[in-house]
């Protein structure tokens, strides 16, 4: 018992100061990519030829699709003019799929739900996780959201054991053939009003598995997605930032 208390004292409090304090990321962290159109002078389309993903759609004008980003160093290196660069900005969740596309890499950050939904979910949101054709990376980060550092539960958000108890589903994975019916059955079992949150490059457009005949291109159109969280996998704070914006707990403000 004394050992328990001694260890408890020594371990201290480790919960992140986010969202009150701005988090710090290491220099090499690959967050939101930025695109400098002025450096892409001649529109050589080298990015489309040599990048391993469809992050940049050559123009004119060239468009950045954050939903297609795999956050690999090669996607920045693919532009011979150096117009693509990963920034350390971790905030990139959007309310709409077009919100992830722009000419600069800027994201239209997620808007808060309408007032009625916020009254229902703002202080208590119960989610059901459906994994459908993933590598397990996004799930590992979803699990990490529950640890003492990120401590998702302090915001009233919890993952629950039944779709009947849930206010929405979190979909990870490219939605492969072998999970399509289980995803639909889970969605059908969640009572209205309900949310869909798409987490990770796979759920947004197929991720690294895109083009395989065994997977789709992310969450099927029949599911009305309320929050798109890019990443491969998204950092837990990218997820937390998106969720808190959706719930109106972080206001859309200027970038830091």
């Amino acid at each position, binding site marked *: 018992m004394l050992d328990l208390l*001694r260890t408890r004292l020594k371990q201290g409090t480790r919960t992140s100061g986010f969202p009150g304090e701005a988090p710090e990321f290491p220099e090499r962290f690959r967050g939101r990519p930025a695109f400098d159109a002025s450096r892409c002078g001649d529109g050589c389309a080298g990015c489309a030829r040599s990048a391993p993903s469809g992050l940049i759609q050559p123009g004119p004008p060239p468009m950045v699709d954050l939903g297609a980003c795999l956050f690999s160093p090669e996607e920045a290196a693919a532009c011979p003019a150096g117009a693509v660069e990963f920034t350390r900005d971790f905030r990139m969740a959007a309310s709409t799929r077009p919100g992830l596309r722009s000419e600069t890499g800027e994201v239209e950050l997620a808007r808060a739900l309408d007032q009625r939904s916020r009254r229902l979910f703002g202080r208590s949101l119960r989610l059901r996780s459906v994994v459908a054709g993933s590598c397990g990376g996004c799930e590992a980060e979803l699990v990490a959201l529950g640890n003492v550092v990120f401590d998702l539960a302090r915001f009233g958000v919890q993952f629950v054991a039944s779709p009947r108890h849930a206010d929405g589903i979190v979909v990870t994975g490219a939605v492969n053939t072998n*999970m399509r019916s*289980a995803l639909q059955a889970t969605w059908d079992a969640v009572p209205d009003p309900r949310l869909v949150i798409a987490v990770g490059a796979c759920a947004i457009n197929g991720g690294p*598995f895109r083009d*395989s005949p065994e997977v789709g291109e992310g969450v099927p159109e029949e599911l009305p997605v309320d929050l798109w969280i890019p990443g491969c996998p998204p950092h837990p704070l990218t997820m937390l930032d998106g969720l808190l914006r959706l719930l109106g707990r972080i206001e859309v403000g200027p970038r830091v």
Partner: protein
Amino acid sequence: MSAFDSLGLRNRRSVPWESVPRETERGFRETVLSAVANGWRLASFFGMPEGQSDTRLLAVLAHDASGSLGATSTVVGDGFESLTPPCPEAHLFEREIAEQCGVVPRGHPWLKPLRRHAPDHLPPGREPIEVDREAYPFFRIHGEEVHEVGVGPVHAGIIEPGHFRLQAHGEEVLFLEIMLGYQHRGVERLLETARADRAVLVAESIAGDTVIGHAAAHCGAIEALARSRKTPRAQAIRGIALELERLANHIGDLGAIAGDVAFQPGASYLGRMRGECLNLLMTISGNRYGRGLLRPGGVLFDIPPGMASEARDRLEALRADLEPAATLMLESPSVLGRLEGVGGVPREKCLELGFVGVVARACDVPRDVRHDHPYGIYRFAHIPVATAWAGDVLARALVRWVEIRRSLEFLLEQLSVLPAGAPRVACGALQPRELVVAMEEGWRGEIVHVAVTDARGAIRRYKVTDPSFHNWTAVALALPGNQISDFPLCNKSFNLSYAGHDL
């Protein structure tokens, strides 16, 4: 034609495809069976289309005591006599061959779908085979008061999809059958068809918690085929990344086991410390799981001296936090009482069915690729193999704890003696018509990637075997005799990958 064991095949050393014996079906069978009887084991066994309507079966055999590998092959039509009855460790490989190539292992005692998909390695001249993905014949026990419990594919937590069917009498589990394939994404076909720079991203995504392990095996195979020689510095950085991955996952697993027996201090402290290891990987590679670090030819990110000393400081701080937290957990009688004697795997089943990694080492089968088939940094820096003998949940936890401390020592040492050299060298075109086997001791156990190139030096066949492929059978064997309520704890003590199995 040479004998299967005199090809000069070793971990990451390729051989000409022509030198691989092409035996009659009978000769192939005898070669494999006598090798297995003489201390070899099946590291990989798969099929690939040959000509219009035939399938070439290739068996890769490993002899751990001498660090050698062997290979032999045969050509079959739409079936062959199953090796499983005399050689049970072939059982899953043969189910996989049936599903991928449409070749039936006749006489297989448990021939069921493995991942539930249509054959994706069918010879071009054969009729396509339709597959009912929903059909799966479960084993059932009938009798008064026998009942059945089904769990999944969507689980009550944040867990990958899989279906578990328990036959139980009251609380006691009589039988567990595990139906997988829900995470099937067609990884092998992608690795065979995608451009090289995309393929390495797919390799990093075979199992999201084993990014380094699978990327290292993939790079090892490609580098051997391209005759690219990494610098000692690149090898050391890869070793550092692999041990950081092991550290993160083993610490996370101990925390998760603590959570499953409701020992909250262990769950919260160790869960946080897992994150510290991931954050260190992020400092080095820009991603918490080490994505983007390993590429054919070496590593994309160097560890400059300032970063190495910062990493050492952070690992020393981690060690200071870790020792009391893990000791608190592993010395609490209430924890030990829940781990001891639960979910045991018998040693003879491990040998018979070819389990690997922590699961094998916890029942006193000292298999470890780093030790048995050393490569890269592990040729120079040896990590002793940790074993336990009881084969239960506690033994698996103890093996992890010993490995955590050994990985920490390795990391602290390597970070202070990083050799000079470039982090990455060129890695050009692949040699035509060669076979390579790249093995890696990932944190779960043995990862095997096998690649065969065609006459133009393109990948003709790429075979991936994650340790989970073998070890899911161990979960099914560990459950009978335990209570249903111990199923989550047992499952957690293995912590296998669904994605790694399903590919």
